């Protein structure tokens, strides 16, 4: 029959962790960008801190989801990169 997915709200701590993760990713990205010009390193660092290796605040299911979302982001980035500006400029 129908499989069902019971909707359970995440706990407050989970929600706060997620909000913090998403915002700090951007904040660290901006900060490191201004500091050394490679904002993505800041975002990698946040991932290192939040994730399994260090603090372990992200449940494994989330980490899998983020990997999938991130991969889509990479694909879209490549697509945008190729489509947006391929105007020869010599």
């Amino acid at each position: 029959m129908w499989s069902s997915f019971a909707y359970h709200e995440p706990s407050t701590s989970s929600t706060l962790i997620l909000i913090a993760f998403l915002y700090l990713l951007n904040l660290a990205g901006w900060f490191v960008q201004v500091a050394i010009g490679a904002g993505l390193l800041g975002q990698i660092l946040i991932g290192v801190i939040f994730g399994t290796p260090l603090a372990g605040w992200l449940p494994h299911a989330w980490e899998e989801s983020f990997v999938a979302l991130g991969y889509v982001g990479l694909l879209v980035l490549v697509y945008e990169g190729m489509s947006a500006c391929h105007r020869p400029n010599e």
Partner: protein
Amino acid sequence: MKLTAGGMQSSIAHLASILPLATAVALTGILAPIGLSFILVPMGFAPIHSFAAGSSLASTSLGTVLTVLHPATVGFDLRQTRLGAILFTAAVMDDVVAFILAKVISVLGGEGNLGTEIGRTLGVTIGIGIVWGLVTRFLLRPAYAAIVARRAWEQTPWGGEGLLLMLNALVFTGVVAASGYGGTSPLYGAYVAGLSVAYLSSEVQPPTGSAEMEMPDMAMSCSSSPASPGSVTPALEPATSLITAFDSYASKPLAYLLLPIFFGSIGYSIPFVPLFRGRVIWRGIVYAVLMTIGKLMCGAWVARRKSWRAALFLGGAMVARGEIGLL
């Protein structure tokens, strides 16, 4: 950023002109790390490990390259420059090769047949490039021209930018799906899709105004800097194209949600703690030095034709890719 006023080179011609150099850069980026990895063999690594390690380093960190090249990062649009285009194309080529190498490794690990795997990947890669090129030229271009010609569509609720965004999504999803299921890297699919959209946008101009007026509009949609000096009257709206539609819908979610998540996910995929044992550390340093040399050799291709600064930049950017790959 200057644009030639009258004629515009097609993006395909541009691609063809940078392809040889990009190929050379890409090949160096792959072979040098692998070759240099074999230096480690006398130090006690099995050859197969050298090969695997070298190929994983050669694998591109496309995300790094693109983020570094993005206008928001550097302040002007590096992608417009020849150097940026070479780096980009070389990165995608490296990615396809890395994809193949990963398959080779799995085959050497005992599954599948080397010839068929490599043959299939190469065949699908080239095949998708050719087939999609033809589809774009003979199917999509007339269709897109027809859509663009009917300005009235832009006024309807379902027309306009939303429609163009859907076209973007269809092209993107279709080619990525074809690549993934066909047996090559989906990233290559995204590359081909983007290329065809660039071609469509540059070859098909909206019918209003002269060609000269359209170009500054395109410049506005591409770079983040203000419009280039030109004769655009402020009263005219910027030309709507596939690219502007995509930008207006997707660039913010991409930059502020998807990409941070992507780099975050790379972060926690690093096996962090084992990295801090002494043995791993010195091996890591030796390896990093070797790989830096290998990547810098890529810069040598550019040195002959351009300044030393350009060569260093290219080599350095390839090193950055490699470091991410190391992680």
